[in-house]
Each structure stands twice: as structure tokens, then as C-alpha cells.
């Protein structure tokens, strides 16, 4: 029911507004719901608002976990 797109914060202007890069396209995004975000951070954006900080390292980690799990179960089955 809700599109959420990951983007990276390019710059922060006053009034809790940031410019966020999505695959090379930029749009102004409000940080009112995630004021702790800083330049360089990844965040999930929905209807022009940053909703959640994202941790690319964590994404990488869970991805590797899935990979390892599938490897292991593949060998045992």
C-alpha cells in the first residue's frame, strides 16, 4: 500500500529539508519524521518524507546471512 524508495542524502537545507538522490535523480525530502539524519545517510522515503534511516552494511549482512543459510541447507538436503 505504500511505495518506499531508498535514497541518499546529498545536502540538508534549513527547515528540516534535504536533497535526496535516488539513482541519480534528486528531489527535496522532509526530515521532520527523521531529524537525526545527516548528509551521506541512506533513508527510506515515502511521499516526500524520510521515514527511516537505512544501514547499507546491515542490508549487506542480512543478504550474506540468507546466502549462507541457503548454501548450508542446500548441502544438507
Amino acid at each position: 500500500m505504500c511505495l518506499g524508495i531508498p535514497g541518499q542524502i546529498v545536502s540538508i537545507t534549513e527547515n528540516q529539508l534535504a536533497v535526496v538522490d535516488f539513482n541519480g535523480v534528486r528531489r527535496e525530502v522532509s526530515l521532520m519524521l527523521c531529524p537525526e539524519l545527516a548528509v551521506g545517510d541512506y533513508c527510506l522515503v515515502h511521499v516526500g518524507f524520510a521515514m527511516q534511516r537505512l544501514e547499507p552494511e546491515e542490508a549487506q549482512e542480512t543478504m550474506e546471512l540468507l546466502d549462507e543459510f541457503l548454501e548450508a541447507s542446500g548441502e544438507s538436503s
Partner: protein
Amino acid sequence: MKDKRITLSHGAGGRLSHDLIEEYFVPCFDNDPLRALDDSAVIPVQSGQANRLAFTTDSYVVKPLFFPGGDIGRLAICGTVNDLAMAGARPLGLTASFILEEGLSLEDLKQVLVSMKGAAAEAGVAVVAGDTKVVEHGAAEGLYITTAGIGQIPDNVTITSAQAKPGDAVMVSGPIGDHEIAVLMARGEFSLQGEVESDCAPLNSLVQAMLKVCPAIHSLRDPTRGGLATVLWEIAQASGKGVVVEEGAVPIRKEVKGVCDLLGFDPYYLANEGKLVAFVPEKEAAKVLKAMQKHPLGKEATVIGKVTLGNPGKVLLHTPIGGHRLLEPLSGEQFPRIC
């Protein structure tokens, strides 16, 4: 004088109309049939092995008039040249008919005409006849252009959507969706910033290069409005064959994908103005692809799928995870969505 504008008098058929044509249109498109200013342009037909004519027309109403990678004038030339090219025709001549809105700046008109001249030169064709009308302020948005084109088809070439055959390789000449996204961003509606240029270009020399290595190309289409999905579906319907596309093989620029993600658009429905889809006999596919890739407008050409006997009339998309789904033609306007 700076900031001169079109007035209703420019369309009244009198002195001002004449001056407008003499000062702006004729010098810009400069060619013999046009310069004669007779009621019809008379153009020579190349004799030889091309006994069929292709004949097409299209109207252009883009907003804004100027956008990265093109403008309404370039669009009007390329669109009609490309329609001729998709029949394998070499263009003989174009006509251009203008609806000008009262208040349009002559500077803008000039810029559009110069752009048309440039695009026509790229395509190696002349605008041999034209017409101009002026409507009152508010009755149009700047200007509208209708172009028509006539071209000759070599006798050994027959290209139609109905001819797709099982085994045919399906190719696109480059990344899809650039034009529609470039225009959308230029409109500034959703406050998106990014460097995407319209792909607007005349494709006739690319088609000639392809036909040179393979005159037996089965089908050619330029996926304008309705996008790749609609064109593939139309070919599947016309030929009564199935089309299978590998989703992972369809080239899409990351910026275009970025806008699609943001707006919830499906890139397969986005308009292109300088891309073609080719259905080529399996055995000739490698040759044609190589010829495309050597041409500046086909550098990023690639095979995206093939024609099958199964699933007649349908386009099946193989997804990167190994699933499949049907690709339907565009229905209605794509609205940006949040869901």
C-alpha cells in the same frame, strides 16, 4: 527589436503572413520546391527499384516546447521520419503545418524552426511545403506542429507488424524511457532534478544500416506513446505469435529507473522518440545487431527476447528471479502513485 510576438495579423493571409513566411520559414527550410511558394511542392521521385510509397502524418503538442535533448520542432521532424523509417522507407519530403498561439515569441518560433532544420538535415530530408495558422491567445499552448512525410520503399523490403515469425530475435536500439522522463522533468511538475535527455533522433540512417546487412527484417516499430510494452503487444497481436522478453536484458538508464521508482511508473510504458524495436530472423540477428551497434544511434542496441509459437498474441516477460508475467498494453494515462 527584442521580444517580437505573433499576432492574429500574422495569420490573416495578408502582408504580415507573407513576411512571416518569407522571413522565418523559407530561409530556414530553404529548398527548391519550397522556395517556389506554389500551392503544391513538386518533388522528384528516384527511379529504380522502389515502386512503393510510404506516407504518414503526426501532430505534436508537447509541453514544454523546449526540453533537454530536443524541442517540439525536432520532435515533429524525427517522429515523422521515424514513422517512414519503420516501413523501411527512405524519406523523399516532409510537410509541416503550424498552429501558432497569439503571443508566441518570434524568438521561440525561430528556435523551433532552426531545430527542425537541423533535424531534417540529420535525416537528409527537406521540409518542402507548409502552412501557418494563428489562433487567439489561450486557444493553444505556444505552438502545435503537424508534419506529414512521404518516402520510397526499396522493392526487396517488406516490413510489417504481422510478419513476426517464431524464432525471430527481438532487439531494441538502446535504453528505453528517456524521452518521457526528460519531458516530465522539464515540466517540473514533481520537482525532480536530474540529467536525463530526450532520445529524440531521426532513425532512418540506422534503419538503412540494418537493411543493408539484412533486407529481410520482419518488423520494425518505434515505441513512442504506449512504450515498449504496447509496441510488443501490437506486434504479438498483429502476427498472432507470442513474444518472450527477458526483463533483465531490457536496457534502462538508472536515472529513468530512479524516476520510475519514485513515481511508481512502469518503464515499459514510457514514450521514446529515438529508439526502435526490430524483429529479425534468427540467423541474421548477430549481423543486424553488429550493424546497429556500429551506428551512433544503436551503440547500446541489444537483444531482449524472441518470438514464440506458444502464447499467441501475448507478451510474456521472464523476470530476473525466474518467474514470468504478462505484459499488457498501456491502459489510460500513467499517474504517479504513492502505493
